[in-house]
């Protein structure tokens, strides 16, 4: 059947199978040692919220039926889940008991397995690192058909290869991780409007004590306004900060209606003028200076989830998301340069997000490293690909890297330079997958895995 990532690009023919059927097949084949086995190529898939071809392959193994919550210690804040549990469902269980995720992406519609495989980061990366830092242990089904317990002490190489390993070390079956204690389901937020990228960076660096910080950045404005942004910083609110209504049940929200984009927008709806309008409106909505408010966790962490299927606004051709990180040392100089290229091209989206990452964690292919990261969408057109090829080079020169879970078009040569632990990763992977079973379109394209056809 036809499958694609969140960007609707590329769309490919794959065989979709459930994890339980895949396991049955695998145990049958391990008796036979046939040639078909050597050529098989499979990759796990959760909610398909990665943008490009990370979860696409000949055989795609869906974990969504593998979704039991196995343990929740609500005194100490530790959970064990099967990898197909969806974050939105887990939140509904842990929040009422006073717990939150130690790291969360900008959407609730991801699986916990997918969060491990991409070693996702949240707005608190500068304080708390990526999701992998909070994982106590995992069980992994390797390409060799073994079920291994992995942690910082058991099979530790495989553990750090699997965190951020994009499904290439095997299928994560179960995950145990620690949670973050909260008093309320609300966030105290401050929004600060700044005139350009330099001011934005100053505010980021002055906000390191805040648990959460992120900026919406205007990628169209030029000149003195290059990189004008709204920076949002937040803390989990205490009960005393809530209004009377909210403080009666501080851990519960009243449900809101979801809206959805009912069909693919014609692509002309997304041209430079409409983007400019959007950026202008968003920027003006926040008054100059600093605005303070108490907002619920959904509004703060998952604003896009209020609009289901927003990815359809790019039309049938789909879109690509480009996310890179630059070392802190090169950011000051290079980030404005990149923003200028984007502004000149005039095709960037309203969804540009800027953030300052903290210290790097141990995942061998994990994306976050200390420095500034920018993420934005482009329609999947040839003009976009030309622009992005140019940006890849600049990112490479500045010793930055590209986020794999967002990528659908990077060239293999930039892979090695961005990810310095790549060869260690490949070694660990080969030791546990002698038949080269777990591969994605992306991993073959980027030569992370060797294409043996």
């Amino acid at each position: 059947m036809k499958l694609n990532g969140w960007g609707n690009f590329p769309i490919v023919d794959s065989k979709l199978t459930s994890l339980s059927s895949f396991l049955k097949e695998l145990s049958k084949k391990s008796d036979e040692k046939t040639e078909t086995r050597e050529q098989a190529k499979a990759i796990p898939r959760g909610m398909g919220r990665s943008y490009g071809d990370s979860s696409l392959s000949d055989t795609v193994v869906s974990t969504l039926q593998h979704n039991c919550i196995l343990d929740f210690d609500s005194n100490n804040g530790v959970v064990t889940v099967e990898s197909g549990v969806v974050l939105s469902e887990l939140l509904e269980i842990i929040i009422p008991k006073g717990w939150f995720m130690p790291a969360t992406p900008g959407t609730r519609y991801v699986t916990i397995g997918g969060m491990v495989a991409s070693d996702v980061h949240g707005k608190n990366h500068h304080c708390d690192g990526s999701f992998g830092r909070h994982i106590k242990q995992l069980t992994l089904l390797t390409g060799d058909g073994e079920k291994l317990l992995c942690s910082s002490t058991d099979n530790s190489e495989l553990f750090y290869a699997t965190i951020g390993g994009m499904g290439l070390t095997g299928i994560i079956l179960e995950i145990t991780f620690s949670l973050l204690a909260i008093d309320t389901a609300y966030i105290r937020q401050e929004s600060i409007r700044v005139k350009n990228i330099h001011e934005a960076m100053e505010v980021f660096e002055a906000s390191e004590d805040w648990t959460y910080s992120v900026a919406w950045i205007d990628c169209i404005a030029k000149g003195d306004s290059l990189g004008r942004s709204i920076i949002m910083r937040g803390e989990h609110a205490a009960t005393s900060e809530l209004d009377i209504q909210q403080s009666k049940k501080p851990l519960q929200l009243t449900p809101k209606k979801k809206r959805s984009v009912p069909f693919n927008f014609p692509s002309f709806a997304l041209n430079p003028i409409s983007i400019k309008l959007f950026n202008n409106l968003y920027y003006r909505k926040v008054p100059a200076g600093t605005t303070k408010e108490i907002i619920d966790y959904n509004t703060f962490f998952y604003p896009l989830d209020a609009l289901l299927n927003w990815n359809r606004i790019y039309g049938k051709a789909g879109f690509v998301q480009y996310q890179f990180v630059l070392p802190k040392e090169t950011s000051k100089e290079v980030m404005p340069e990149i923003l200028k290229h984007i502004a000149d091209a005039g095709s960037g989206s309203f969804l540009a997000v800027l953030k300052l990452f903290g210290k790097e964690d141990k995942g061998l292919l994990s994306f976050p490293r200390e420095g500034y990261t920018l993420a934005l969408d482009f329609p999947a057109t040839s003009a976009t690909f030309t622009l992005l090829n140019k940006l890849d080079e600049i990112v490479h020169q500045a010793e930055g890297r590209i986020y794999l879970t967002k990528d659908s078009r990077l060239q293999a040569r930039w892979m090695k330079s961005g990810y310095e632990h790549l060869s260690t990763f490949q070694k660990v992977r080969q030791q546990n997958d002698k038949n080269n079973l777990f591969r994605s379109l992306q991993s073959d394209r980027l030569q992370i895995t060797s294409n043996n056809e």
Partner: protein
Amino acid sequence: MSPSSLLILGATSDVGRAIAHEYAKNGFDIILTGRHLEEMEKSAKDLEIRHGIKAQALYFDALDSASHQAFYDSLDNKPTGVVSVIGLLGDQEKGFDDFNHAEQIITTNYTALVSILNIIANDFKARKSGFMIGVSSVAGERGRQSNFLYGSAKAGFTAYLSGLRNEMFKHNVHVLTVNPGFINTSMTEGMDLPKALTLQPEDVAKDIYNAQQKERNICYTGWYWRWIMLIIRTIPETIFKRLGL
């Protein structure tokens, strides 16, 4: 009063799992039964964490009818209701050549269920309360070349449920027959099913819960199968036998 509880036969199936969540969400305690204990123990944990009810997992093999009475006697708290989701599509061609396989299909879909449901019916009768749900199939409404071993066993099961309903009515026990059309489950994985006519297990579970609560007798899920089957049943046999169904 102790809370309502549901005994699920065939709890490892996708439909069985969805039914467990639907009833647990509505406050029922759940008893999961089947042949894969480890898997069901995980599901039981999950049901307790998600819905704050009590759930347990027990080994039960429908084909071992000699064990059925002891199995039911071993339940400390007898359930308020039972649902059988057990089914085996099997391999029509293989069953046509090999009677062992044919017998397995027939027993799993029909006679084995008679064994356990009779035992439960007798208990419910004595207690003068309870509800019984049998998941049969639209395949039981007319035999077709592609699956008539399965279909004929389901036909037997449907007739059994109809008689059981008649028998249990006077004892204040309600019996619901469920006739699903296509469901997206491991039974149908890889089959090329018409999307518009194929339901998710969760939809089927909701339909079943609502039909049981409203004490419906026969529930087609999705509802349109009632009309599709009406048409299929009225095709004259002289024409039907020539069709490639």
